[in-house]
């Protein structure tokens, strides 16, 4: 398929989130050939699932839009979605890569008109909203999806519903016979921008994420606040749809914990500080946010954001790692139990909703990576010893968007160096 364009001069970027897009674009704009592979049907990754960025509180759509424009205008990048890397052989400058491409069942003729979605009735969990809502089994992943093409879920591909979707398409873009493909490529360098995933909150037993409907994660809260989210941007708690005005944020939910993630995930303090401002935005002075923390790590230059939030009368801080959460059976309110460190006062405090600021776990945790890739003790990718494979963005360290972009740019430069050396030897 694409094997003809791929050579030892090509850079493979694994992962199409903000880091992967950045790494691919920086190299492509230097004139390098890049193949950008993404496991899901769209680029954008977890960045596209944020409501706002800290500290400027602007919307991620803006930054994504710029990158998508760069991408559309650059012939050096080949984007492959629904594609996973299954094997990497070889060494610096000369890798043989095997890719697995899952069927989208929709061809490039798609105009994203949405007629197939209307023709289909069955629904699947909405991955874009972390499963908080449902989407039709023929769907556009989200408004900013790139490529702007629908996806037919494999669950209906061979059914009457699949046929109905096909019949509804005016452009003949539905291809139910599409099969999984295997592609072989040769590349000179590999940038691993495989990103992160929220730590599985079910594993934090005392917090009852698995038992209490009104205990949610920070990424889910992000979707609740977003107008494109399942509640249309209203902060309604999942248990009973009640307006959640008194919200607790629990820091280090899974991070800095020998029983869970050993590392500090770095972004969660800022994420919760940011989310208190969603509460203010939604309810004004009626809203109430309480942050339970061990210590606030507003990294780098973010201290002023922290101070701004501290001045907000609707936000209070309790220096304590919550020991456990129970539920008030009468009203479904979570009750937080613990002892604070500033005076050792025992508390049992009720809130409408609890948001667990879950840690960042590398997406590759549990995945078999090429043997020569070096991981740190938390499974973040450092790269290969010979420098031919490079970790980038949140795959390499827990990073916010800003720092992920910096990291990806640096990784891109290293990949370019590999290609240059390769070119020098090939020409010699």
């Amino acid at each position: 398929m694409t094997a003809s364009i791929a050579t030892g001069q090509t850079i493979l970027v694994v992962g199409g989130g903000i880091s992967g897009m950045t790494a691919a674009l920086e190299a492509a704009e230097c004139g390098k050939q890049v193949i950008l592979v993404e496991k899901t049907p769209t680029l954008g990754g977890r960045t596209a699932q944020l409501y706002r960025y800290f500290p400027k509180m602007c919307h991620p759509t803006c930054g994504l839009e710029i990158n998508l424009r760069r991408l559309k205008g650059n012939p050096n990048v080949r984007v492959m979605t629904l594609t996973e890397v299954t094997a990497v052989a070889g060494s610096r400058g000369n890798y043989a890569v095997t890719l697995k491409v899952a069927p989208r069942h929709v061809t490039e003729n798609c105009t994203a008109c949405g007629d197939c979605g209307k023709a289909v009735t069955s629904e699947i969990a909405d991955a874009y909203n972390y499963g908080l809502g449902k989407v039709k089994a023929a769907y556009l992943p989200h408004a900013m999806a790139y490529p702007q093409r629908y996806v037919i879920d494999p669950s209906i591909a061979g059914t009457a519903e699949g046929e109905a979707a096909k019949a509804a398409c005016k452009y003949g873009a539905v291809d139910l016979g599409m099969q999984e493909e295997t592609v072989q490529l040769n590349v000179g360098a590999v940038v691993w921008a495989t990103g992160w995933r929220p730590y599985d909150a079910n594993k934090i037993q005392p917090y009852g994420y698995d038992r209490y409907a009104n205990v949610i994660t920070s990424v889910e809260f992000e979707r609740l606040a977003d107008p494109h989210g399942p509640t249309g941007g209203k902060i309604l708690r999942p248990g009973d749809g009640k307006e959640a005005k008194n919200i607790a944020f629990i820091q280090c939910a899974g991070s800095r914990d020998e029983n869970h993630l050993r590392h500090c995930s770095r972004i969660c303090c800022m994420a919760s500080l940011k989310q208190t401002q969603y509460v203010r935005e939604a309810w004004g002075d009626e809203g109430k946010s309480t942050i339970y923390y061990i210590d606030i790590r507003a990294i780098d230059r973010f201290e002023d954001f922290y101070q701004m939030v501290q001045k907000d009368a609707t936000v209070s801080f309790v220096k304590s790692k919550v020991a456990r959460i129970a539920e008030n059976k009468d009203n479904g309110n979570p009750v937080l139990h613990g002892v604070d460190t500033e005076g050792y006062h025992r508390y049992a405090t009720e809130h409408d909703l609890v948001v667990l600021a879950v840690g960042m776990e590398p997406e590759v945790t549990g995945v078999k990576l090429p043997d020569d890739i070096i991981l740190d003790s938390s499974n973040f990718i450092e790269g290969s010893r010979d420098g031919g494979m490079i970790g980038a963005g949140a795959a390499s360290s827990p990073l916010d968007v800003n720092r992920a972009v910096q990291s990806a740019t640096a990784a891109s430069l290293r990949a370019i160096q590999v290609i240059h050396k390769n070119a020098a030897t090939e020409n010699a």
Partner: protein
Amino acid sequence: MSDLNTQAVARYKNNFLREVEERVEEGDMVKMCMQCGVCAGSCPLGPHWQHSPQKIFMMIRAGKREEVLTSDSMWMCTSCYNCIVRCPRQLPITHIMHGLANYAHRLGIAPKGQPTREFAKTFWNNLIKKGRVNELTLTLAHYFANGIGPGIQIALNMQKIGLGMVLAGRLNPMEIFGGHSVKDLNGFHAVLAKAKEIEDRKKGFSA
């Protein structure tokens, strides 16, 4: 104040943390505490004792020797291990609490008349006599710990259970006359003496 205590004060002066590190079981882990408070909130007996583990650890670092060693807190620990399971830094909190209790006891400054401490003493004294716990004398000693009147009252209350255990062959009334011992009682006592000698040497107790 016991000689051991005076010696310890002279030896460590104001550095109570070092004293704990050297002389208390797992005491060197105390400095790893990051004061998150999960242990305090997880303790089922938390509301009923003077100082939570979190607070004890901070007090150790603050050099509050007297208050720590005379606290009733470490005697209230029931070894449920909830704190160890949840501690994000995997501190062996239960072990440290027992280590502190043991150390305070050794120095002779543990709280007098504290019920769990009294029972621990009764249990230990019963155990070392014959190398095994004599259930009958241990139970009776426990019943009568608060005096004759309450002792008789508890014994009467427990009469049915006691009788049932005798009939089921789980309790031998003849054990009241001293009871049977382990096979090599002298050997057992030698083991204890040796263990004490090693512990004293390791922890720097000068006899």
